[in-house]
Every structure is written in structure tokens, then in C-alpha cells.
């Protein structure tokens, strides 16, 4: 029985019901306003160390975001650009300049900010509508309640790997965001400045 569940697909494990009519694209409105500076106080727990900082997202155009992380006093820790399929490291502290870490952050922030992505499958679970899509070749499930996005889950080999939750939502602005990794110790908590 456990083996069967272990091998079952993520939608089956979670009792999702397939749905036929589906939107063509996912929609994530939380970093979609180019007139807004998205500024968050961040708390990062990584590999048994905890540190804080300021997390900043700016939409600069269609499919174009700049994402930076600074210390409270303002020194830049990292600064990335996402533009279409391109990804650029503008700056990263030498101590953190590791390919593995940059790839983790790239995957997380791409999933966090990508506004639209083609829908592969559509499901329902109770009151929630769930859209399956691929971001950087990994399966992602977007959970909507009343058309409001409140969770994104990255799934690999039928297992939940990363969970993005959006809470305290005010007019398409998620004031609290959490990114939790399940396969290693990395947890990012973001709280909006205002």
C-alpha cells in the first residue's frame, strides 16, 4: 500500500480530481506591477544558520524582473536579473558565489516571480483549483482559491520539494511569503515593509 502511494503521482497522492476546462496559462500577480517597488524584510534559515536582510523585487518590463538581497545596513549580498529565458548574476558576495546555491536561488525566484506559464493539466480539490505547469523543466502546481493564488508547490519524482505560500494578501500584493524546502534545510520568510 505504502509502495503504491509512494509511486503514485502527486495529484493521485493528494486526491486531486481532473478537470477538463482549464485556463491556458497560470497567473501570479504578486510581482506584476512595474510601478511598485516590492520590498520585504527577509529571514533566511539555511543549513542551521539564520540571517536577516532586505529582499527586493522590481518588475522592469514584460518577463523582466530584478531581484536583490541586501543586509539591513544596505550592503548587497546578491543581485539577479531574470529576463525571458535569460538569467544574470549582477553581483553576489564572494562567500556565496557557489554554482549549487545560485541554481537553487534561480529556481526559487523564477517560480516566485514568473507571471504566466502554460498550463499542462488542471485539477480540483474541494474548493481549490490547481494548475500544473513546468518552470525550468520542473513540475509546479499552482493552488488557487476563489481565483486567488495562495500556494505553489514544486514536485520532483512525485515528491513535494518546495512550497511557496502567499498570505496576508492585499489587492494583488502578498505581504507575507514563505519559501520552504523539504529536502534540505532552507527556509525563507518574507514580510512586506508596508
Amino acid at each position, binding site marked *: 500500500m505504502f509502495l503504491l502511494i509512494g509511486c503514485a503521482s502527486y495529484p493521485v497522492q493528494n486526491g486531486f480530481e481532473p478537470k477538463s476546462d482549464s485556463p491556458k496559462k497560470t497567473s501570479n500577480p504578486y510581482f506584476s506591477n512595474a510601478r511598485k517597488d516590492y520590498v520585504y524584510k527577509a529571514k533566511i534559515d539555511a543549513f542551521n544558520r539564520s540571517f536577516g536582510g*532586505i529582499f527586493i523585487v522590481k518588475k522592469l518590463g514584460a518577463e523582466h524582473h530584478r531581484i536583490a538581497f541586501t543586509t539591513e545596513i*544596505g550592503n548587497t549580498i546578491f543581485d539577479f536579473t531574470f529576463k525571458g529565458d535569460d538569467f544574470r548574476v549582477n553581483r553576489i558576495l564572494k562567500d556565496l558565489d557557489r554554482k549549487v546555491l545560485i541554481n537553487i536561488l534561480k529556481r526559487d525566484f523564477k517560480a516566485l516571480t514568473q507571471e504566466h506559464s502554460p498550463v499542462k493539466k488542471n485539477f480540483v480539490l474541494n474548493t481549490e483549483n490547481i494548475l500544473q505547469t513546468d518552470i525550468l523543466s520542473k513540475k509546479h502546481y499552482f493552488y488557487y482559491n476563489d481565483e486567488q493564488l495562495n500556494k505553489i508547490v514544486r514536485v520532483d519524482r512525485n515528491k513535494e520539494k518546495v512550497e511557496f505560500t502567499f498570505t496576508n494578501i492585499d489587492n494583488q500584493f502578498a505581504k507575507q511569503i514563505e519559501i520552504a524546502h523539504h529536502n534540505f534545510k532552507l527556509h525563507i520568510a518574507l514580510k512586506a515593509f508596508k
Partner: protein
Amino acid sequence: MHKILFLLFFISISAIAQKEMTPTEAVALKTKVKTRAEAISTVMSEFTQYKHLDFLSDDIVSQGKLAFKVPNLVKWEYTEPFAYSVLFKNETLFINDDGNKSNMDVGSNKIFKQLNQLITASIRGDMFDDNEFNIKYFKINDSSLVYFLPKDEQFSKFIKAFHLTFNANGDVIEVKMIEPSDDYTHIKFTDRVVNKTLSDAVFTE
């Protein structure tokens, strides 16, 4: 065209306003600041911090309080829009992030060690070390503006320059830390109180 004229106007204004000091004037400023720094035992001040990132529409503004006690106790406490404090004490950096406490051995980290020394020195206005910095002196009306360009290559990748503004009394009223990308943090001090008794309790972790 209007933009160019506007720009030229401001460049010429700033050229008039900001004038390089003569060597004699620079020595006089150093002496004034050092004399003043030597007479300081404690400093308390409010501060407003403006983080400028070129790609943002507005600077990120935060506010807080600073406490300093000789020889090297420093506490930065942000109060708005978040609660966060950093205490430099006995070669250790104690962090209180909205109730979550942690610490870091500054002694083992050269960057933080230098940052601490600079913060301490800049609060006291006593950072005129020609071995550590290339220093340039300017005057703007009654106040002085001094550029400190770190000589240490590793450190200059972190902070390209410190610009300190001193008022006519020789107190630091503004600090600007410029990153290699030209983004900067601009800190303005207000309500500065010098030599008021500060209990050690202010500096407990």
C-alpha cells in the same frame, strides 16, 4: 536639450558648492575632528537610512537609533519599519532580529572586523588613516565632505567609498557608503547627544 541645460546648470552649481580643500584646510579639519573625537565618551543619535538602488523607483527608508560608548561599544537599532539591532562587543557581532538572537565571531571575519572599525571610527569622526584609505577633502559652505576610498582590494569590492559629511563643529552628520555598482546607503544623523551617561545595560545582548 532642456535636460542637458538642466544638467549643466546643476553640474556648475555643484562645482561652485563643492570645492576641494587646500592641504592646510585639510589638516585643520583633521585636527578639529580628532580633538573633538578624543573628547567623546558616548554618542546617542537618531538616524534615517536611505538605501538607493538604481533600478528602484524610490529609496528604501528605515529609521533607528545609534548608541556608542568608548572604546568600542556600538549598537545600531532599527525601529522602523522593522525591529532589528546589531551590537558590536568584544569582537563579536550580536544580532537581535525581531526577537531572534544570534551572534557572529567578528574576529574571524575580516570584512566585518573592518566594517566595525569603520563604523566606530566614523561615529567618532576619526577615520583619517592614510594607510587604509585614499582620502580627499572638500568644503561645502560651512560643512566638510571627506571621501575615504579603501586601499584594501578585498574590502573595496564590498564598499568602494565612504563619504562623510562633517558640520562646522566637526561632528559627523551624514555617512554615505557606496558600493562598486554605485548603489549606495545614505545615513543621516539627527538629534545627536554627546557625552550623556550611557549605562552598560544599553549594550547588553
